[in-house]
Structure formats: structure tokens, C-alpha cells
């Protein structure tokens, strides 16, 4: 069941009505839990069983941790959680690496490899990281252990964030589940707006430009046509994932729950570090808090080497979180290299700035270079294998770069690019899409009408969300 499906619309309307009719927080949470479990079940019973059992195990560890004081015992409980969760991710995500070996072993026990594929739970990579914060936040004493296992289950299965995040922290969501939620019309309006702007990014931008990227990135294209395909993929990926994230925030806010912002105009970033502060913010924040900070602190006596080690480990984990295979490992290394160069060149840049002043490097040039660095990373991200990625890089230098002689639907690509950058330019100053509520009424009406026209005219939703494969 996807956000942009009639089944979801009917189910959400029913849940929404029931949620605001029932009396009090406890009943509201029960409605949310039933809806979330129903959402998981719509993808299969195995997914629900894996999610429920592993969440209850996490709850038990967090409970024990909350009652434990000796540092060594606390560390043992933390590592138990880490091993169980990483093991869970590795077992399901990397199954195809060891399926051939497992096949013979499981075959003898009467279990077939097809069963492994069925068992792959939806949104696993997202909700496993989210679930881990139940223990991590208690370990770091950011909140007490949640006593009610049903609240933990609701936290992990919360249907707006289940499939593709944003990856939430228990310290943010659980206190909201514990508070009474009263109807607020302005927050409902914000939720509707978030959902509509998300739907626009997914069903109008991503899914229209997606067809273009598919055709231009097919074998045979070189030079500018191939570059146009990479641009199209960049806009598709942004529209697809940011669109999902905005819709998730919208659903949650309509139910009186605030979940974190996941994208904040990443393609207007002026350097690679800035990009990662604005792209998939919830994952970057999670990795920064629990891996980079922990590691760089542990290795602080190594000085700059410790920091660089922290950067590389964090980005390699990020790459491998996205998927299996060497392309994702290379994607992590690509960005680790970019961040390392940016970080270590700080003094050089500062000296350059002191000597030549601030005039020589316009912001648009920094945005242009950063965007194209990110685009080159997407080649690794999308390629089926390392050889394919290398071949794509090589093909960029073949063929023509004359726009008049390449066959590209420049109008669609140009409109999507204009829409993506214009939207991000609106988002960047306010740090959110809520800028619309600060504009005059005539502007809002005109904007809603234009958006409505574009949604009706170019609405082309696909069932596929790129990030759901992770």
C-alpha cells in the first residue's frame, strides 16, 4: 500500500476520523498502533512478525538497560542490541550474498531460498535504525526506558515513517505519544500542505523526469545526452525521496505528531559537507550522532587521523546501508573522499580567502560544482556494478556535447530542473516549506491553483519509490 494509492487514501481517511473521534491519548495510540500494524500487514505477515518480535526484544534490552548502572553491564547490553540489529540487517539485506551457501543447508531443513525473499521486511533499513534508538537513547541517558511495549511497537511501526523514514529518535516520538493531542486546524492545514507538496514532488516531478532518466541512462548514450540523463536522475531521486518524506511528515502532522524534516534544499548546497547537512538529514544525523561522533571521540588522541578515520567509517557504513555490492561501497568512499578533502583543505581555503578576499568565488559556482560532484556520485549509486559505473564515466567523454545535435527532451528536463531549484530556493531561507503560510492570501490562492493544475495535468504516479528498495 503506497501513499499515492486509492487504498491508502481510504484507509487514512478512516484512521484519521477514528483517531480524532476516540477519547484521549490512550485510545488515539491504540488507533495508531492498529493502523500501523495493519499497514505492515498489508505487505505480508512475515514482515509484521519480524518487526514485532525484534521490537519486543529491543524493548526488553532497553528495560534492562534502564535498571542497570555498572558501566560494563550497560556496555554489554548496548552491544547486545547493536549485534542483534546489525545481524538482522545483514541477515535480510545481504541474504543474496550467502543464499547459494544457505540453499543447500536450508534445503536439508525443508526451507527454500524463496522463503528468504518473502521474509525481507519492508522498510527494514529505516525501522531497524529507528528501533535501535530505543536502546541508544537510554544508554546515552537522553530518556528513560519506555515501560509500555505497545508504545515501542507503535514507535517502530509508525506507518508514516515505516517504509522510508525519516528515521526518528525515540526521544522525539515517544514523548509525543505520551502527551494528549488536541485537534488544531492550523496544524491540520500544515499537514495537508506537506502532503500536497510531497505528492507534487513525487508524482509530478520525479515520475515525469524518471522516464527521461530511464531512457537517457540506457546503454548507447554518451556525452551531453548521458549527462542530461544523470541530471534527470538527480531530479528524480530528489523528487522521489523528498516527496515521500514530505508526505510522511504531512500524514503525521495531520495526526498531531511532528516528525523531523528529511530534506532542506540539498541541491543548493555550496560544498559537500553542506550537502550532507541537507540531504537525508535523518540518516546523516543518526550516523553522525552514533558513529562519527563516537568514533572520532574515541580516536581523538590520533588528532586529524582519528577524524579522517571517523569520516571514512561513517560514509562507508552509509554506503553499505543503502545497499549491497561494491557500487555502494564505492559511493560511500566517493563521498568520504569529498568530505575529507573539504575538511582538510580548510586552512588552505582560509589562507586563500585572506589573501584574495571574498570576491573571486561566487556562490552559484560553488552550488554548480557541488551539484555536479553529487551527480557523479549518483553514477555509482545507480550503476548495477562497478564496471557499469566506470563505463558511464568514460562515456561522458565520448560523443557530442553540442546541445543542438543531441536528442534530449530539454523542455521536460528544464521544467523539472526549474521546479526543483525554485522549490529549494523557497525552502532554504525559511528552513522549511511553511513559507507558504507567511505569504499574502492572493499569493497562496494563486500558488494552490497553479499547483493543482500541475498535479492534474502532469500527475503520473508510479508504484515505485526508489528508496524503498533499501
Amino acid at each position, binding site marked *: 500500500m503506497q501513499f499515492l494509492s486509492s487504498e491508502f487514501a481510504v484507509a487514512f481517511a478512516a484512521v484519521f476520523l477514528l483517531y480524532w473521534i476516540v477519547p484521549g491519548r490512550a485510545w488515539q495510540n491504540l488507533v495508531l498502533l492498529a493502523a500501523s500494524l495493519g499497514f505492515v500487514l498489508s505487505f505480508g505477515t512475515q514482515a509484521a512478525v519480524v518487526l514485532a518480535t525484534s521490537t519486543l526484544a529491543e524493548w526488553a534490552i532497553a528495560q534492562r538497560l534502564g535498571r542497570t548502572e555498572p558501566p560494563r553491564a550497560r556496555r554489554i547490553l548496548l552491544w547486545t542490541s547493536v549485534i542483534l540489529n546489525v545481524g538482522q540487517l545483514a541477515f535480510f539485506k545481504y541474504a543474496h550474498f550467502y543464499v547459494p551457501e544457505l540453499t543447500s543447508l536450508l534445503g536439508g531443513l525443508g526451507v527454500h531460498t524463496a522463503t528468504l525473499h518473502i521474509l525481507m521486511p519492508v522498510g527494514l533499513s529505516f525501522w531497524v535504525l529507528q528501533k535501535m534508538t530505543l536502546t541508544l537513547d537510554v544508554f546515552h*541517558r*537522553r530518556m528513560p526506558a519506555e515501560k509500555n511495549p505497545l508504545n515501542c511497537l507503535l514507535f517502530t511501526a509508525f506507518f508514516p515513517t515505516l517504509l522510508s523514514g525519516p528515521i526518528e529518535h525515540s526521544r522525539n516520538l515517544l514523548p509525543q505519544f505520551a502527551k494528549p493531542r488536541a485537534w488544531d486546524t492550523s496544524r491540520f492545514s500544515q499537514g495537508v500542505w506537506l502532503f500536497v507538496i510531497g505528492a507534487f514532488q513525487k508524482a509530478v516531478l520525479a515520475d515525469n523526469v524518471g522516464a527521461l532518466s530511464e531512457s537517457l541512462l540506457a546503454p548507447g548514450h554518451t556525452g551531453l545526452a548521458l549527462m542530461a540523463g544523470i541530471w534527470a536522475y538527480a531530479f528524480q531521486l530528489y523528487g522521489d525521496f523528498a516527496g515521500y518524506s514530505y508526505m510522511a511528515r504531512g500524514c503525521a502532522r495531520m495526526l498531531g505528531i511532528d516528525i523531523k524534516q528529511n530534506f532542506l534544499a540539498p541541491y543548493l548546497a555550496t560544498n559537500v559537507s553542506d550537502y550532507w547537512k541537507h540531504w537525508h538529514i535523518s540518516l546523516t544525523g543518526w550516523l553522525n550522532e552514533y558513529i562519527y*561522533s563516537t568514533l*572520532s*571521540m574515541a580516536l581523538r588522541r590520533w588528532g586529524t587521523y582519528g*577524524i579522517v578515520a571517523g569520516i571514512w567509517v561513517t560514509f562507508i557504513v552509509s554506503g553499505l546501508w543503502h545497499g549491497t555490492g561494491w557500487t555502494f561501497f564505492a559511493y560511500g568512499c566517493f563521498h568520504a573522499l569529498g568530505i575529507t578533502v573539504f*575538511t582538510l583543505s580548510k586552512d588552505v581555503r582560509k589562507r586563500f580567502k585572506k589573501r584574495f578576499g571574498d570576491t573571486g568565488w561566487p556562490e552559484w559556482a560553488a552550488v554548480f560544482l557541488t551539484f555536479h560532484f553529487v551527480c557523479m556520485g549518483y553514477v555509482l549509486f545507480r550503476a548495477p556494478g562497478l564496471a557499469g559505473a566506470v563505463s558511464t564515466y568514460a562515456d561522458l567523454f565520448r560523443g557530442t556535447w553540442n546541445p543542438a545535435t543531441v536528442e534530449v527532451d530539454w523542455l521536460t528536463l528544464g521544467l523539472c530542473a526549474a521546479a526543483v531549484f525554485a522549490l529549494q530556493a523557497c525552502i532554504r531561507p525559511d528552513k522549511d516549506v511553511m513559507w507558504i503560510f507567511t505569504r499574502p492570501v492572493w499569493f497562496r490562492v494563486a500558488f494552490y491553483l497553479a499547483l493543482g493544475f500541475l498535479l492534474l495535468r502532469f500527475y503520473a504516479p508510479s508504484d515505485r519509490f526508489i528508496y524503498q528498495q533499501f
Partner: protein
Amino acid sequence: MTRDALLPALLGIARNVTGEEDLEFNSQTRFEDIEEWDSLNHIHMVVGMEDAFGIRFNDPSRLQSVVRVQDLLDLIADLKGL
């Protein structure tokens, strides 16, 4: 060392780590507003503070929770037993 001496000492370490002799902040300054206090300098600052104040930041979560300079001064004072 007294609590009052912590802020000037901290400023001295920060100027030394960042190489910015004219760097200024006070106890109410938020760390996100100190441009030079980035992730790279943060680690160097931690080492600098440990060496200068004779303390160990063994619990990274306490450092992660500081927002203003005053929070850090309180943490240092706590670790030094001031």
C-alpha cells in the same frame, strides 16, 4: 583554578586551536554561532581542554548535549570538581 577562570582559559584554547587570534565568545554564545567551532576543530578542542584542564570527557553524550558555552563551562567545572 576557579570557575571564573574557565572562560578565559577556554577562549585561549579555542584561539590556539582555530588560529584565530581575534576569536571572541562569551558564556551565552551558542556553539552553532561560532563559525570556527566545526566538527574538525571540535575534536582538537576536546583534546586541548582535556590537556589544559586535566580532565577526561569519557561520556561523549554529555558533550553532545552542550548548546551554549555556559553548558560546556558547567561540564568542565563538574569534571574538575569545582
